[in-house]
Every structure is written in C-alpha cells, then in structure tokens.
C-alpha cells in the first residue's frame, strides 16, 4: 500500500476515534483512489480496527459502490429501475453493451470503462438516466449514449 494512502486512512481512523464507523469513509477513499478494495487493504483495515478480515470483506461485497475487482477508469452506472425502464432504459443498457463490447459488471479490456446496472439514481424525471463517475446524464436516447461514450474515447 502506498504510504500516502496509508496516511489518509490513518487520518480517517483518528477522526472517528478508531471506531468501526471509520470503515465506510475509509473504504470510499480507497475505492476512489485505487478503483477497488484489495486484500491488502482489507487486512490492514481489519487489523487496525481489530475486526476479522471477513467482516471487512463482507462490507465490500455488501455495498455496491465498493468492488473487489479493479474497476475501469470510468464507471458507468446505468439505471435499470422501473421509471427508467418504462421510458426505454433497457435500450440504453443494450446500447452501452454494444458500444463498449462488454456485458454487465464487466470492464473493457483497455480498462477505460466498467458497466454497472444500478437501482434508481434519483433522476427519474430525466429517465432514462445514467451516471458516469459523478456526472449525471438524463433523457438518454441510443444516439445520445453513443455520442457520450465516443466523447470519452
């Protein structure tokens, strides 16, 4: 683990008085920096918080924003909940799969994109919708999706 990352984790641990409440903020930090939560990080956090590793591991698998596998540089979260579905959300997912040449939960071979179907993003008034990293994209059409993705390439 990079020492810089370790330092920042330590800062979070201190902020939360060494309690396990620090776990989510720490995992957010690592996910953001590294694109995944490695075994090394899991053991480190577990030992620092005196928790069994499987407990920390369980956290990573429980929450959909954390991943064990290294994710692509850009994470596409496409909404598959009902209001988006009613407005053609399925086609958006299909278009993304075609355009990127990957399936759900996969990462492109060049590690640029990871595609994740997710539950409602609170953008239902702009359905169908998706997020790429922390940007929101609404009122999507097949064409718009292609343009957005090509804009990233």
């Amino acid at each position, binding site marked *: 683990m990079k020492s810089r990352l370790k330092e920042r984790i330590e800062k979070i641990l201190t902020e939360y008085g060494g309690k396990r409440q620090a776990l*989510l903020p720490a995992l957010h930090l690592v996910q953001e920096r590294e694109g995944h939560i490695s075994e090394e990080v899991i053991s480190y956090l577990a030992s620092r918080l005196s928790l069994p590793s499987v407990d920390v591991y*369980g*956290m990573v698998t429980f*929450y959909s*924003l954390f991943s064990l596998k290294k994710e692509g540089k850009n994470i596409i979260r496409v909404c598959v*909940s*009902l209001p988006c579905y009613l*407005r053609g959300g399925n086609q958006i997912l299909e278009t993304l799969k075609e355009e990127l040449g990957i399936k759900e939960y996969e990462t492109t071979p060049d590690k640029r994109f990871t595609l994740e179907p997710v539950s409602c993003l*609170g953008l239902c*008034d702009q359905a169908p919708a998706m997020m790429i990293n922390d940007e929101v994209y609404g009122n999507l059409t097949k064409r718009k999706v292609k343009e957005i993705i090509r804009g990233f390439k």
Partner: protein
Amino acid sequence: MNPVKFRETKIVLKNIHRPHSRRLKTYLKAGGYQALKKVLKGMNPQGVIKEVERSRLVGRGGAAFPTGLKWEFAREAKDIPKYVVCNADEGEPGTFKDKQILEKDPHLLLEGMAICGYAIGARQGNIYIRGEYFQAYRILKEAVKEAEEKGFLGKNILGEDFSFSISLYRGAGAYVCGEETALLDSLEGKKGQSRVKPPFPAFEGFQNKPTVLNNVETLANIPDIILKGAQWFLKIGSQKTPGTKIYCLSGDIQRPGYYELPTGIKLKRLLIDYGKGVKGELKAILPGGVSSSFLTRKDLSVALDWPSVAKRGSQLGSGAIIILNDTHCMVDIARRCAQFFAYESCGKCSPCREGTKRTRELLTNITLGRGELSDLELLCELQEVMYDTSRCGLGQAALNAVRSAILKFRDEFEEHIRERRCRFGICPLGKESS
C-alpha cells in the same frame, strides 16, 4: 376554514427558485434561521415538541409516522447522549425529492435538524446521504461549513446555551439502508441490515442511544411550523395529514418532475394540471414507488394523502408516483419489481431473502411460458407470509406490486400461462431469452 390557495403553498421548496438558493446569504435574506432563533430565545423544548405535535406533521419518508410523537419519545427517553439522524438515503425508485432540498436549500434541512436537537436534547446530528448523491454531498458539506462559521451550528449557537453539530456520512449503494434500522447499522460502519423492532430508534437508535430519525422533507417542514405556527400548517392540505407533500411524477407522463402541493390533491388533478397528461393511455399507477400497490383508472379520484391512498388498498409512501400506459405488460412489470427486491434484499431474514428470490423465479418462469395457474395463488400467499414475517419494511412491501398486479390484471397473467401469449410481444414465452 378556507384552505390556503394551492399556488401560495410552498414550504419545503419555497426557496429553491432563488438565485444561489443554496448559499447561507440567500437563506438568511429569505428569513432563514429565524425559527432556530425563535426557539433558542423564547421556547422551551417541550413547547417546540407541542407545536410539532399540534401541526400533525407526519413523516415524509414513507411510513407517515407522527413526527411530534417520535420527538416526544426521544425526549422522554432516559439514556444519553441523544442523536438526530437525517435519512437522506433516498432510494425508493421514483423518488427524487430530497435531492432537491439537499442541493438547492441545504440550510433549511440544517435548521430543521438543529431545532430537533434542541427539542430532544441532542448535541449531535448525522446526515446519512446516499453514496451516489455526489453533488448533494459536496453542497451539504459546504453548507455545514458555512453554518459553523456563522455560528448557526457548533458551540453556543446564537450565543445561547445550546451546542449542536452536524456530521455527514455517505452510504455506499444499498437500497435497504434507507430503512431506519439498517441505516443506523450502516451509520455505525456495519453492513446495512435491519434490526429487530422494537426497540424503536427513538429509544435505542444510533449506538443504542435515543435517536430521532427523520426524512429530509420531514425536517425541512420544521422551520415554518415553528415560525408560522401549527395553526397555519393545519390549514394547508388534508385534515388528517396536513401540510404539503413533494410528489414525484415519473414514467409515462408528459411532464415528469417534482411538485410540492398540499396533501390531498386529487390524483387526476396532479396528472392533468401538473403532469400535463399521460403519455398514451393510462393503465396503472404506483403511488408510492415500487414498494406500493397498483392503482388503476378507477382510482383517479383518490386524494393523495396517506389515509386516502391506504383506503384504496395502496400506499402513498414517499410520494413516488409512477405512471404506466397501456403499452406495458403487467407480467413483465411485476417481474421487474420482483427483480429489484431480490437484488436489494439484505439477506438477514429468511422470509425476505428466500421469498424475494422465489418470487423472481416464479414470475420469470411465467414470462418464459413455464408458469402454472397455481403459481398465482402461491404468489399471493407468499405476499401474505412475507408481509407477516419479514423483519423490515423491505420484505413486508416487496410483493405489494406483484400481488396487486395479479389481482387487477389477472387476465394478462392467465394469458401468459394458459395460452403462452404476451399480447404486447414483450415476454419471451418459450422463445430463447434471458
């Protein structure tokens, strides 16, 4: 008693049209933090709670529990410290209202929380915000900082003997964490799995201490109730659950969006006057997101408040009104709803964990042409069992949509089973598919 005119009645979204509405400066100009001042300078905690009780404000997060009563429980609880927790996990599909407040008028929420803290005797508040609301998180963070700098949060607020601080905590993508006890576990840094109730959070909440847990919209109502009084509030909307509600319109509607209106507005009026009409022919309505039961054209006259929607056999919940037109297959829609709950079940209690999976399987089989008529009875029975035995609202409500679809659109289900036919050509029925 003349109800206040629809147009004038904005409580929680009253500021969002102002330029830079999220800044403290704008908020102060619009009369912000005056309610907190009023409370600290001249009301005792009991008085605050009495006012909230008299207003008959009920929770806007879904369960419509009387807010004043909840505060009273926490106030009376003996244990200390006490906490205020704001539920900003907004995850019910079709809901996008709390985000408006968080992003456009964060100080309204902070003021509401500080007043709650004063009323119940808490010094610490937490906002649990869903992980995907990146923008709202940044804005809130900035707002908390501003409020601290100007002495509206922190030590000795407005020079009075009351200290209250607010921390932010980000969720990480799990619908169940919107459920209050799962949220508390998540806020403690654990997996978000529901706790057995009772004890309710008002008695044993965050770190097992007395905790008021309220939705964003609920708390955003507090400053005006304090400033203008419960009597004023009672004149707005329906009598049993007065005030306004932010209704979120989505699905097959001309103008989807969020509309703050007095409670009790007729569904038809919302769809026509505000939604500008249905796209296509109206088929079905989910008034409270995918956790609620389907209404149909017959219910257009229903008043949109919790008791009236309940009388029609459905739930208003968080006010996520999803419109479906007649191009959708109800079997396919039911399967989609089932899929959502199977994915989001936290797995802690077996009725929900197994029930949501079995439901998804049964419905998938029907869409594949492998269903049997007895499956429909089985699904309705499963709904009852899950309603009675699931540990939290997720499992209890998971089959509302499925059961009501079967009851109200039975012919579509039977057609899939008996004739292996989907009149919309949506379900694969024996042809190769997912």
